[in-house]
């Protein structure tokens, strides 16, 4: 196989448990975002726009939707003759076989894939962030500084620093220490989970890490400290553009709302850095005579006969006459029947909100689906493929989950496959 400069590896195997029912049957990177995208469209498009054409997608948890979505990589121009997108699930081998034990182990298990390309550099990415970043610029800084590893960092507000993996640096941003969620941070440079390694150095570290039974096989916790202790040159690469984690219900909701409130920040209309996605093959949106759409983002196949305000709608959503949708994120194929009023709801694939259903923070009290662990700020989340009973009232901070036995109080009329 031809010699390659750089290969990107996207860690897309995580469950994303904090997204609750949204990741019950799909991995987090396959969760729809921003009306016409999935989360993984961002790292994939960043790779292509950065000129990286060899991209491994490491899938493990509920890989079906993700594998189908990425497919042959065609929507991102990643169906090249000798390059492209490669889905890399864990596999059985003679001797011992394993699931991906940690981020570092996932790359370790695919060292043959990387060796075949024999790249000079490897870029490691996570599939949980919404951002536009030129990995090529980071790579150039890695090469110029003759680094062994470069870690992308984001300056977070000091008070938020204890929630992140923090890198302490000296001089020209040379990394001297990594601290996971420090109580008293010495720096506000948070690791973005975007790494650039010289493959030879990383390969050696992965092999050593694998031999250590005590290791968590994690990049932040194990590989970075090991390289620092070994006297390797690690640098921080400061990134200042838009960067949002969408790992929780409230951050997923907020980041969707950013498209409406601060459209210039992520700037999806930038033709020099397009975010590509798999096209749903649906006709254009239709707004009926009784429809009213303000301050919202819509895409192909939507049919609106009711009122939509400050909401993000994915493809083929139907809002019937007399229904009101406010501050919501509706994923593909959701139907909101007449008279329903939704506020601050995230509704997953194909769920049908029955007539006159009311949901959101204006409904007071608690119900059988109240979930303060995952939901906050009055946001309600609906599992995919449900028919919600006509007239149901659902208080804020609920997560409608078909696995919860709510007895008579259940608002679920039926569950179907979408």
């Amino acid at each position: 196989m031809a010699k390659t400069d750089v290969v990107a590896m996207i860690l897309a195997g995580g469950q994303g448990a904090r997204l609750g029912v949204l990741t019950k049957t799909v991995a987090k990177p396959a969760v729809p975002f921003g009306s016409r995208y999935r989360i993984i469209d961002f790292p994939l498009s960043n790779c292509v726009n950065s000129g990286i054409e060899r991209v491994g997608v490491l899938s493990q948890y509920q890989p079906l939707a993700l594998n189908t979505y990425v497919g042959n990589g065609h929507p991102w121009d990643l169906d090249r003759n000798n390059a492209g997108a490669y889905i890399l699930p864990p596999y059985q081998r003679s001797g011992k076989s394993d699931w991906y034990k940690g981020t570092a182990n996932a790359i370790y298990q695919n060292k043959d894939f990387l060796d075949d390309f024999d790249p000079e550099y490897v870029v490691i990415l996570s599939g949980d962030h919404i951002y536009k970043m030129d990995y090529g610029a980071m790579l150039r800084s890695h090469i110029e500084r003759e680094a062994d590893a470069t870690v992308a960092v984001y300056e977070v507000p000091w008070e938020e620093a204890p929630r992140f993996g923090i890198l302490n640096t000296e001089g020209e941003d040379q990394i001297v220490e990594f601290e996971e969620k420090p109580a008293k941070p010495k720096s506000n440079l948070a690791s973005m989970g975007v790494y650039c390694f010289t493959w030879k150095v990383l390969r050696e570290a992965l092999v050593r890490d694998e031999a250590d039974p005590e290791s968590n096989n994690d990049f932040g916790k194990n590989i970075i400290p090991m390289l620092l202790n070994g006297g390797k040159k690690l640098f921080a690469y400061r990134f200042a553009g838009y960067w949002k984690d969408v790992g929780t219900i409230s951050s997923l909701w907020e980041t969707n709302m950013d498209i409406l409130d601060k459209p210039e920040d992520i700037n999806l209309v930038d033709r020099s850095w397009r975010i590509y996605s798999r096209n749903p093959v649906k006709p254009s949106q239709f707004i009926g005579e009784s429809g009213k759409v303000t301050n919202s983002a819509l895409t192909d196949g939507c049919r609106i006969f009711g009122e939509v305000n400050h909401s993000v709608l994915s493809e083929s959503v139907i809002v019937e006459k007399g229904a009101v949708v406010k501050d919501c994120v509706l994923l593909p194929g959701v139907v909101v029947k007449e008279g329903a009023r939704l506020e601050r709801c995230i509704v997953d694939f194909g769920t049908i909100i029955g007539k006159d259903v009311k949901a959101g923070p204006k409904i007071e009290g608690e119900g059988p689906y109240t979930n303060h662990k995952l939901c906050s700020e009055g946001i309600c989340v609906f599992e995919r493929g449900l028919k919600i009973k006509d007239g149901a009232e659902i208080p804020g901070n609920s997560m409608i989950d078909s696995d919860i036995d709510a007895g008579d109080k259940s608002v679920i009329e039926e569950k179907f496959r979408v």
Partner: protein
Amino acid sequence: MFNDVMGLILADNKKIGLGELSEPRALSAVPFGGRYRIIDFMLSDMVNSGIKNVGILTYNKYKSLMDHLGTGSPWSLDRKNDGLHILPPYVNSEASNITGDEELAGVLDFLRHSRSTYAIVANSNIILNCTFDDMIKAHESSGADLTVMYNRDALKYGHPCYILETDDKGFVKDMLYNPQKATSNKTSLGIICLRRDMLIDIISRQMSHGQTHFGLHSMVKMFDEIKVYAYEYAGTALRINSVQTYFNASMSLLKDETRNDLFWSGKPIYTKVKDEAPTLYFDNAEVKTSIISDGCRIYGDIDHSIIFRSATISKNTTVKNCVVMQDVHISENCHLENVILDKNSFVRPGVRLIGHPDYPVVIGKGAGI
């Protein structure tokens, strides 16, 4: 679904002009319905019928058509075997006299290389969502040599048109071109099916008589020599014959029945993917009874209109009964009614432009007003 049929689309039509809309492009490449080109419908119909080998016959202005079709991948026609073939005119030793317009010679090779039994040949001025399974079945059971699809539009769409007269068994006994009075309400839809070997025979014969232009109805006209059966299509079919019929066809998409029949029948209409951002509706946007495509930014009022991808409608601007194509920018304080704005056109602030519903104003591609 069948594997045994090939398709041939005649991408332009010398009898039909859409004024400024067809000036920069072939008829079939004229944008339609928010995100499509006219050819997308026929091409998708063929693909949805299981046809995997499609030739597109062009004779000039085919650059925008080729940009649009590319390798055929949006229609799953980027195949090793068969797939999409663009057939520009070329001069071939088989043509008896060289006129620079040798469509027939160009298509003959393509037909000879195919292995299918039947061919569907279609004009490109028809918008419908159908499959050809039933037509082929009717063709086979009628014992006809050639079958032509029609509906009962009579002269509803004006000229040009071909009116068919049939006998009591449904065979064509006369065909009238642009009659002043219709002697029957059966109007050809410009779609025929016949055996591929027969198509090759007919074309060879036409060439030896010095004909160079591929005319679908010149084959229907052979009803005296071969058995020509007429097959009725009862679904929605929009004919594009003129700027006026283009405008009416566009506006008819705002009716639920038309939209449901063309787009939501379960058979998708494929088109080139553009990867535009979602459309943003801002605070004061007022949109009613309109088709809106991706990538638009809407600050003003839109009523009863078709808006293509990545158009901008600014504040305090009203767009009513208009067709606004891709990348059009309409500035603030404008009022547009019954206007067709072609791609990339630009309307400066404060412009007031009102056409008549029976005679819409057309702003050409890239024009600034």
